[in-house]
């Protein structure tokens, strides 16, 4: 029930931002379609902690600036490797993840892929490890540092 309310509210805000029509009839119709979409999603069974991870979504702005800075830094690193392809020394490393929820683990893997120079190739839910392909030693070792792991675990708030 709570999930349906949150989902309806989010969808209605999205509708309000995108529509640009603010007359009584259209506002009502917009609300009804938001509610309808949420009910269909609930019936499909996708409105659970995984489909709507509010804990993570609400805390996301806290790490945004840090993440943007990391992305810019590694962008520059990858550009240097592209200009000199011989300097690429790919590595595969297994990163231990301390996240307790599946949504948290996915967020961690996505953050790793989002920073250029590292791509998460395989995620093991049972062992809580992420297999990462790094473009050079430096990128791969950077992933092993607990910095990102801690930030994402902080997002879970558990």
């Amino acid at each position, binding site marked *: 029930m709570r999930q349906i309310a949150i989902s309806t509210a989010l969808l209605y805000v999205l509708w309000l931002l995108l529509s640009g029509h603010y007359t009584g009839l259209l506002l009502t119709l917009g609300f009804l379609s938001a509610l309808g979409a949420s009910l269909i999603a609930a019936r499909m069974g996708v409105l659970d902690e995984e489909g709507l991870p509010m804990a993570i979504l609400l805390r996301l702005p806290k790490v945004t600036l840090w993440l943007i800075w990391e992305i810019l830094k590694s962008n520059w690193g990858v550009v240097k490797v*592209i200009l000199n*392809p011989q300097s690429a020394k*790919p590595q595969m490393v297994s990163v231990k993840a301390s996240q307790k929820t599946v949504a948290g683990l996915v967020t961690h893997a996505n953050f790793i892929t989002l920073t250029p120079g590292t791509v998460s190739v395989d995620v093991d839910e049972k062992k809580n490890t992420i297999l990462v392909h790094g473009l050079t030693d430096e990128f791969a070792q950077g992933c092993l540092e607990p910095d990102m792991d801690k930030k994402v675990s902080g997002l879970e708030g558990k």
Partner: protein
Amino acid sequence: MSVSVLIDIIGMVSLCVGSLAVIFGALGLLRLGDVYQRMHGTGIVDTGGAGLILFGLLMVSPDWTVTVRLILIGFILVMTGPTATHAIARAVRVSGEEPDNVKTGRKKAAKGGRK
């Protein structure tokens, strides 16, 4: 110099740097070794390239409805980009392709992959 001119200049510079990032990403796609390395090249396009271009457009956007749409585009790109990259990487690994110069302990698949 007024503030709006300054914001315009920041936007233009950001657009130019973003376009450069896209060019470098494409260059990486052509120059790097195997499929795993090439994925790092495309990583530049959908983070640095798309990010800086969107930021530049935000700076020069004429009114708030455009701003809202640009922020939404950025959010959706950040959510879907890594997922798509991971899907490709995982598919490559599952199909038996091993990265160059890396010891993973798995046998290298026969050339040409499985039929």
